[in-house]
């Protein structure tokens, strides 16, 4: 049995022992280690950072710097100045969409995304296209529910300025071959932005090996607090890009005649950052590192294959996405039962799932459905959670038969 037994590490399950939490792709629950770290930081270590006029502030600054280095190590970046703290994946994508388009692209160039992107990896790029006279191109997906690589190669060309793709789809669970994507894109001179929101809790990431130009993720899908996320960018690009948001902390000197900007990473971190959340993210990375990705991937595989075995036997179910090379989730619809009715009935059996368009309306249109139900799995899930899901789904089928 490769299942992990980490449920007791998550205090939420002491408060709600009956819950089967199957919505981790939306946001993960928080381990005691992260909660304690944030509480401890506020209780005995809190001060604002980057001032260093007193010892408390100096230590808080060090804690943030340590987390920056932990992130660097976690995703295999070369230099910690390449790690920019943002409020989350959405903010990171907005930063790249604006600053990169403004500074390093030329009108008429293209931004290539895919049919399966989350709205966060569509709308900021769509807006950048409007603002900087760029054109948005959409790569289709295959009937199997994966990126169509032949179509991708056909759409990619010297006119491509940015390729922006999800590492793992939040609906289909398919894993994009991002290393190949980067190689192909770089041959055409395009920059690559990877939305890693769904990936970082499930697969090891090494940005130097992948050779992506930008990679972003959120802390709250990685067992950390909400309100903080990471943008990784290659130093030479971040240095060449114009500033995005401006204000305190990102300046070198300010006068009414001329302002000069701080070096990386501060250049892209205007305003007081979410200090305790950054420290909490550090604890979350430590939590994941202690388990290790070998154990996480074995656990994911055990839970996912058991879930697929049980789900696929249900009457009238349609499961979306590939069956292999897939991360920890299943999106599905049931014949005659709308996903919102499914979610309501499951909630009565203390099973938490997501139902709706999953912030991926173009993908819903592709499958000609208004909504899907999604069960997503994490380190604290067990086969008991899957049994609870299946028994609640059987009740749904009974109500709507």
């Amino acid at each position, binding site marked *: 049995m490769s299942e992990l037994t980490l449920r007791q590490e998550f205090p939420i399950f002491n408060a709600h022992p009956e819950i089967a939490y199957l919505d981790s792709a939306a946001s993960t629950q928080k381990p005691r280690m992260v909660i304690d770290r944030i509480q401890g930081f506020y209780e005995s270590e809190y001060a604002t950072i980057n001032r260093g006029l007193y010892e408390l502030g100096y230590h808080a600054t060090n804690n943030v710097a340590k987390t920056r280095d932990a992130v660097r190590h976690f995703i295999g970046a070369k230099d910690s100045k390449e790690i920019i703290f943002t409020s989350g994946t959405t903010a990171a994508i907005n930063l790249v969409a604006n600053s990169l388009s403004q500074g390093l692209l030329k009108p008429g160039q293209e931004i290539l995304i895919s049919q399966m992107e989350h709205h966060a990896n569509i709308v900021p790029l769509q807006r950048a296209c409007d603002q900087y006279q760029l054109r948005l191109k959409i790569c289709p997906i295959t009937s199997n529910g994966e990126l169509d690589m032949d179509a991708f190669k056909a759409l990619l060309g010297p006119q491509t300025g940015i390729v922006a793709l999800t590492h793992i789809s939040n609906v289909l669970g398919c894993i994009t071959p991002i290393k190949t994507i980067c190689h192909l894109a770089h041959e055409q001179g395009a920059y690559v932005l990877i939305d890693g929101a769904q990936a970082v809790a499930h697969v090891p990431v090494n940005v130097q090996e992948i050779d992506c130009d930008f990679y972003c993720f959120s802390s709250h899908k990685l067992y950390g607090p909400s309100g903080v996320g990471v943008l990784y960018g290659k130093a030479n690009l971040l240095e060449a890009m114009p500033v995005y948001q401006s204000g305190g902390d990102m300046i070198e000197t300010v006068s009414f005649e001329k302002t000069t900007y701080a070096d990386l990473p501060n250049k892209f971190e205007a305003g007081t950052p979410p200090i305790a959340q950054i420290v909490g993210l550090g604890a979350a990375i430590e939590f994941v590192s202690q388990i290790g990705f070998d154990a996480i991937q074995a656990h994911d595989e055990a839970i996912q294959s058991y879930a697929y075995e049980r789900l696929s036997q249900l009457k009238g179910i349609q499961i979306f996405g590939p069956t292999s090379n897939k991360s920890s989730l299943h999106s599905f619809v049931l014949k005659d039962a*709308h996903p*919102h009715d499914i979610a309501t009935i499951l909630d009565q059996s203390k099973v938490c799932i997501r139902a*709706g368009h999953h912030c991926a309306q173009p993908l819903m249109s592709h499958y000609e459905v*208004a909504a899907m139900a999604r069960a997503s799995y994490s380190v604290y899930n067990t086969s008991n959670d899957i049994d609870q899901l299946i028994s609640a789904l059987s009740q749904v089928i009974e109500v709507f038969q």
Partner: protein
Amino acid sequence: MSRLASLYQEMILSHNRSPQNFGDLDPHTHHSHGVNPVCGDDFHLYLFVEDNRVSKVSFKGQGCAISKASASILTETVLGKSIQEIIPIKDAFLKLISDTASTEEKAQLGKLKIFEGVKEFPVRVKCAALIWRALEDAISQQHGQISTE
């Protein structure tokens, strides 16, 4: 009755399976398009009003069982009634599902009372309300689009 059984009553399930007055209505005198952007419920409501009475009514679109059954029963309710008769029923229904209806208001709702269970499910109130908001929009002669958000 369990909370779930009070939500998914047989009449609601039956209207979900076989919705009444489902489809286009051309010509029509009143129309509104109701959308719940969070869950994707999306319905059009059409009325044909002559001599101040609803002589024909239909709806089309897609949504969950609660929103579809609510639409189906709405069409049955308003058929043959005058706009003046419909308005207090609509107001009473919207109060019923948000748990603010008086005994007198409940009394005029007839079989619409089966939606009372929705009040136990705050996130589903919008589903039951959607088509009634569209009705409100249609009879106010806005002929537009409404959204629950």
